[in-house]
């Protein structure tokens, strides 16, 4: 089987999410990476080094610079005549592009796979991960998104794939990119961090969140996450949200501070290796999944903890 994998990047560097997708695709057959973007020679060179990649296709065109699905779908659908499957990481970019491609190929997409069970059989979470479905496709081709936390990252170096330019399809004239407000942070990225400290509604406001959570995260070298309640209340930006509808994370250590543990939040973090919860309510549902729980007022416990580390 041959699989075309969408390479996630920002036109300058390959993103980590690509590496998990390569591993997932490698379980199906021969992996080719598609680097579509604007001025992406550097990304293509990086992609060629990823272990397990047999070939890199480069589609360089200004129309692909912002990863607009209206422009990318015709390119990918054209390429798919030579492939059995199209796979993207289950990132916001992947989720935006893959279904558009699937519909044009008249294929039922398999979203967010956790494992490959056979050439057409996969497991995937439903109901916020409260159930795992094993599904088998009857379509001639497959379109898949793969959950990052479910597949080990392929080695970023060691490969030496051939790089080949492909014909571009230009601007579909339906959409344009206006601008972005992307968070800049010195901290590790949520989806690849080894340690995460997350705060919930209990943190009161943006200042209190920053004054309480950030020093602890600094001590632990951690990324910072949040519950939906904390994001909605404006304590932190939206891309901090962990959960069913936010980011899915599985760090070595996840510290939940003042988070009750709603199923939608658990959906995003319950595969973490060790979960630590600090909550003043001993009956908070978060304690049902926590390996270590501390029943305490966070406003005394967290500063004390930070001080003693």
């Amino acid at each position, binding site marked *: 089987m041959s699989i075309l994998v969408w390479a996630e990047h920002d036109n300058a560097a390959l993103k980590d999410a690509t590496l998990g997708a390569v591993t997932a695709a490698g379980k199906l057959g021969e992996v080719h990476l598609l680097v579509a973007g604007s001025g992406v020679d550097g990304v293509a060179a990086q992609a060629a080094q990823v272990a397990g990649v047999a070939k890199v296709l480069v589609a360089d065109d200004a129309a692909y610079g912002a990863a607009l699905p209206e422009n990318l779908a015709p390119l990918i659908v054209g390429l798919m005549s030579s492939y059995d499957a199209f796979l993207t990481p289950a990132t916001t970019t992947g989720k*935006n592009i893959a279904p558009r491609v699937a*519909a044009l190929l008249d294929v039922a997409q398999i979203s967010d796979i956790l494992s490959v069970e056979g050439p057409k059989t996969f497991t995937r979470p439903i109901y916020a991960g409260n159930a795992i479905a094993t599904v*088998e496709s009857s379509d001639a081709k497959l379109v898949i998104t793969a959950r990052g936390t479910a597949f080990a990252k392929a080695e970023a170096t060691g490969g030496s794939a051939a790089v080949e330019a492909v014909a571009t399809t230009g601007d579909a004239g339906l959409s344009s990119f206006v*601008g972005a407000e992307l968070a800049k942070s010195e901290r590790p990225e949520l989806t690849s961090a080894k340690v995460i400290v997350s705060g919930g509604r209990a943190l009161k406001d943006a200042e209190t969140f920053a004054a309480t959570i950030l020093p602890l995260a600094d001590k632990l070298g951690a990324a910072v996450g949040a519950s939906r309640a904390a994001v909605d209340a404006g304590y932190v930006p939206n891309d901090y949200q962990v959960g069913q509808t936010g980011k899915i994370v599985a760090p070595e250590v996840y510290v939940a501070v003042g988070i009750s543990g709603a199923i939608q939040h658990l959906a995003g973090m319950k595969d973490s290796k060790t979960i630590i919860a600090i909550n003043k309510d001993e009956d908070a549902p978060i304690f049902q999944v926590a390996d270590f729980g501390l029943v305490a007022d966070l406003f005394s416990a967290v500063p004390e903890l930070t001080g003693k580390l």
Partner: protein
Amino acid sequence: MKIVVPVKRVLDYNVKPRVKADGTGVDLANVKMSMNPFDEIAVEEAIRLKEKGAASEIVVVSVGPQKAQETLRTALAMGADRAILVQTDDVVEPLAVAKLLKAIVEAETPGLVLLGKQAIDDDSNQTGQMLAALTGRPQGTFASKVEVDGDFVNVTREVDGGLETVRLALPAIVTTDLRLNEPRYASLPNIMKAKSKKLETKSPADYGVDITPRLTVLKVTEPAQRSAGVKLADVDALVGKLKELGVGA
């Protein structure tokens, strides 16, 4: 401009899903069902656009069993104008829903279709993008802001790194994220009024769409369960555990 809003009837988000003992799916007998939360947000946004004068009529559509009428009535009580139920008891995958919606879009010619970004039962996150593909129209997924501007709509999207804004030519397909708005509750008078609003019932065959599933669900199982661990006595005990784990030492 007309707006079409597809709404799905799903297990209420407050109910903990239980996997059936025979492994065929999640138990939906005698549990509370509600409108998919993202679809409530879509209905709300459509109503706000109408209140601002940017839209003239709101048509809500559901694909599902007869009971999905209740979901449509809820949308009508919130402020939608009329409803279409494409009635079927069969499993309808996102691709088939998108094909049915395409047929409805061709008949209704809306300027905007507002969907939820994801149904909280199948967690597919596909239907809006598929509808956009099938109709050949642009898509603004995971919207946290929607501004109609003449023949265009500017959509601010929640993406992994933060926010991004795209400008789409109308007609366009938009899918909602949680922070787009806070949906209103239907008032009692509006619930009464909704009963006399038009609700049409159709079948997939009326639209000539084959809804045969492409995916076979071989089994549905419970995820590996985590068990509650230990409660620590004090902060010092937590410091010790973190050191054992090799962090913060």
